[in-house]
């Protein structure tokens, strides 16, 4: 058991390109993969690496996140000493809007919490990504190199603005590049970092004095300018950052590739934990037809589904046909509806005979609780 590590997950203002998906929630609690919320992947990675104490710095619109995390019991984090700590955005004395401009501002709002962390090292990341990252191995790199900070990086690139690290011959990066999206030199930073606690406090003091809010642009750039070095752990399996509806849809559809699915949910590997709910198994009716789909428990399927992701408690009535759709929990698809490339949020009703046709590049999003 690794008790020298403390987890901090921060949530920032949701990207506007996530549209309806963040109408009622922060991006950290967007449902993904049939039974998860995005934050489950960060939390599970930490718990799987033996982290026993995790602080979650919450942005505004955190009601759904509170409902999901509760006391942390489903991640094994309901503990008398330590465990899950939920940190609302109103910890500062000055009036606060509940929005953070950047990671350093979020950390500053809980600086007394961070100063009290007993562990020597901290895993720091956002909650807007999907993946099954073995942080235990990243910690090994961090310990072996004795670095102040270790970054989880991947080959390739993001379609969105991101940071890149270019390691030197000794495997340590001394340069940080900003990319608007697309390929570039070096490695793509997953923005998951392991840092020494005292080093993080130094970065926070610097940013506080300068009234800087950003982790990469301000804190890391300052550190590297002063001769700092970043150790690198490469994760080249399935991992995706979700910053837009398009990212969300693409990342979901990739789960139908057996290789991607096995990397995210390895049969005998690290489990992704989520909130449990009392649920029955899924029932397929006499006329049901299913192919290439991912289906959670509690569904009742009498229609046809092809390349679909069904969350817990979804109902698909007779004669309904769904193709390339993502249907979130407790949404009902009534008889003879035809849906193609649709993302239906929680608790929607798609009434009898409705036809909704989106495309791969422009999926239709039905907001939470809508009757169509």
């Amino acid at each position, binding site marked *: 058991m690794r008790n020298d590590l403390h987890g901090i997950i921060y949530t920032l203002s949701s990207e506007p390109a996530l549209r309806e998906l963040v109408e009622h929630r922060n991006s950290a609690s967007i449902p993904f993969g049939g039974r998860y919320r995005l934050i489950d992947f960060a939390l599970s990675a930490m718990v799987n690496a033996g982290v026993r104490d995790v602080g979650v710095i919450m942005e505004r619109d955190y009601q759904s996140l509170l409902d999901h995390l509760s006391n942390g019991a489903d991640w094994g984090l309901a503990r008398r000493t330590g465990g899950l700590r939920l940190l609302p955005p109103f910890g500062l004395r000055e009036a606060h809007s509940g929005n953070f401009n950047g990671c350093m501002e979020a950390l500053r709002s809980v600086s007394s919490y961070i100063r009290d962390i007993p562990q020597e090292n901290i895993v720091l990341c956002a909650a807007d990504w999907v993946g099954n990252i073995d942080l235990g191995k990243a910690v090994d790199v961090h310990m072996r190199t004795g670095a102040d900070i270790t970054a989880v990086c991947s080959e390739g690139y993001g379609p969105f603005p991101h940071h890149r690290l270019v390691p030197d011959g000794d495997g340590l990066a001394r340069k940080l590049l900003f990319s608007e999206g697309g390929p570039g030199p070096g490695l793509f930073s997953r923005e998951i970092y392991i840092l020494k606690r005292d080093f993080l406090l130094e970065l926070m003091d610097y940013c506080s004095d300068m009234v800087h809010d950003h982790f990469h642009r301000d804190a890391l750039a300052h550190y590297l300018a002063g001769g700092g070095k970043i150790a690198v752990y490469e994760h080249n399996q399935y991992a995706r950052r979700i910053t837009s509806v398009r990212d969300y849809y693409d990342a979901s559809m990739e789960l139908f590739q057996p290789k991607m699915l096995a990397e995210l949910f390895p049969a005998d590997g690290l489990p992704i934990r989520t909130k449990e709910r*009392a649920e029955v*198994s*899924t029932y397929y009716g006499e006329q049901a037809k*299913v*192919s290439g*789909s991912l*289906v959670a*428990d509690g569904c009742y399927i009498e229609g046809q589904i092809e390349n679909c992701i069904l969350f817990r408690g979804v109902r698909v009535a007779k004669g309904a046909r769904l193709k390339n759709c993502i249907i979130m929990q407790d949404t009902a698809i009534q008889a003879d509806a035809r849906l193609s490339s649709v993302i239906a949020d929680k608790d929607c009703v798609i009434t009898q005979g409705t036809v909704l046709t989106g495309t791969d590049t422009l999926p239709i999003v039905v907001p939470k609780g809508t009757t169509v």
Partner: protein
Amino acid sequence: MKKECIAMLLAGGQGSRLYALTANVAKPHIPFGGKYRIIDFPLSNCANSGIDTVGVLTQYRPMKLNAYLGTGQPWDLSADDGGVFVLPPYMSAGEKGNWFSGTANAIYQNIDFIDVRDPEYVLILSGDHIYKMDYSDMLREHKEKGAACTIAVIQVGMDEAKRFGIMNCGEDGYVVDFEEKPAHPKSDLASMGIYIFTWSKLRQALIDDNADPNSSQDFGKNIIPNLLSAGEKLWAYRFKGYWRDVGTITSLWDANMDMLSPELIDLYDSSWPIMSRSPIRPPHVAGPEADIRHSIVTEGCVVDGSVFNSVLSNQVVVEKGAHVEYSVLMPGAVVEAGAEVRFAILGENVRVCKGAHVGTEPDGTDSWGVATCGPDVTVGPGAQVAPGAMLYDDLVAT
């Protein structure tokens, strides 16, 4: 810590008529209906009825059951002043300890446990029945009728009655006579093995019964008849709804098939959830070649073959080209490509290899029955498991 009513769940029996399936685990731990294990039903009924203290009496092969129960948290039974308590037989100072010699003896040996909770009433439950029941309604009737004991009864066919404990009631509804498995039943009201006792009456009856060297220390054979002959009021609580004893291979298979018919028992009803401890697994995968009809599938399954009229527990794999029909597949069972499973029960982690056949359709003969493979058994490539077979060990094609 005064409680109005606590439950004592009898979970110590071997379930010997399930043969290989209970060779290594107690019957209440047997997987059922995809998501569940048998004990989930009485435990969830307790939680939903507002009973927060459940003593679980274990004796036969309890290790897996103990681990499954844990703190009782999955059934919302981990409250500060309640909870699930596993009660095994124990040793006492200065004297030799005893195994539980009968259902009544199991409760007798735990009188201290009950006294600490100081309840007015004690609910006695079995760990081998599938049903949804509001025990608080039964308790209300027990109090209204001023009974020493209330027995839940269900109407069965007259031809079936000889398999049950039968209650004969007077015109006022009170029990006048009780017969265990009568050859010529006088009534069709069968005992469901669910009792509510006024604790002071039961406590004395247990002490008296324990002093009788000829008693088999059993509720049906001793305690109930003794209370009757002592002139105590016994009330029959009539239960209408789905209830099945799953003590045999045929009844276990039948009851699993019933789960495919929500009109018999609605497990989707969110006002009466049946709760379970589930392994952490992703949603099930239906592959491009999957054909799943009139079946139950659970998280962690990977299905790329055809599955008709069957119940799949978590982590079951049905490979491309495999065929499963009218069967119950317990957690971790694997059916490889080209294998066929018909009218069968596959225990946990059974592997049916390529081209093997397990079971057949009913052929009208007396020797036909559901084929059963015990846990961890491998049915080798091309091997055949005959209908009605009970497989304890690996099988290789001859």
